[in-house]
């Protein structure tokens, strides 16, 4: 049975998605999707420093197994967290169902082949 999945969402400064993916791959993640957007920080913080910041941000979406979620978040924190130039924040939300991940595509033909072999043996 396929394991539960989680969607890891990471918001980083523009141009630092490679850092996120590199870190996530270390913990076992495969691929991700990048969206671009415009971020707005905390208004009070802006007042505190006296500058208005509207930086360009990137949002990385990565679907991972639930059992490696914590490891992925930890690696992303180390590689692209608030203490790095990426200044990323990451969190995860549950995913109910997934279609189209590579592992499903590979597993199905193998299972079908095994069934066919079993059928042949039965005929003999």
């Amino acid at each position, binding site marked *: 049975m396929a394991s539960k999945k989680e969607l890891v969402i990471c918001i980083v400064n523009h141009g630092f998605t490679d850092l996120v993916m590199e870190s996530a791959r270390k913990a076992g993640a495969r691929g991700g999707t990048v969206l671009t957007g415009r*971020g707005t920080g905390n208004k009070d913080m802006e007042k505190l420093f006296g500058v208005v910041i509207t930086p360009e941000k990137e*949002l990385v979406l990565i679907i991972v197994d639930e059992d490696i979620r914590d490891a992925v978040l930890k690696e992303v924190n180390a590689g692209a967290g608030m203490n790095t130039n990426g200044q990323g*924040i*990451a969190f995860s*939300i549950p995913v109910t169902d997934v279609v189209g991940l590579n592992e499903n595509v590979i597993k199905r033909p193998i299972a079908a082949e095994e069934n066919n072999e079993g059928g042949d043996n039965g005929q003999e």
Partner: protein
Amino acid sequence: MAKTPFDQNHKLHRLLFVTVIVGSGQGEAIAKILKDNEAYFCLFMHGKGTAPGSALEMLGLSDNRKSIVTSVVKEDRWPLVRAALESRFAVSSLAKGLAYAVPIDALMGVSTYKMLSNTRFDELKQAKKEMKELNKNGK
């Protein structure tokens, strides 16, 4: 000495990942609603709506550009955000939109939690206040 885990001496708030989809140009108003409800950040993205349209769309005159605003808010703030969004969507047909919230399962670390729940900022404000009082007393 071992450090006490953050959740043992702080009350934890459940966080929700909120997505709001509105017509192009409405994003700033939505961001204001979210910020008024203690959202730490808002992220704007642009998209295109695909809902079946009217005669205007057949003539190519409709504007189906959308603004997508994402943010994180505390769960106890969501009813207020929801009410504010509902009243905003009712302003006019141009202000219509939709919103949904998904509970966050895991976070990158304690500092990220502090940021997203505005704990860190409250702590900074408190520290600043205490410093002011100390300076006052010193004088």
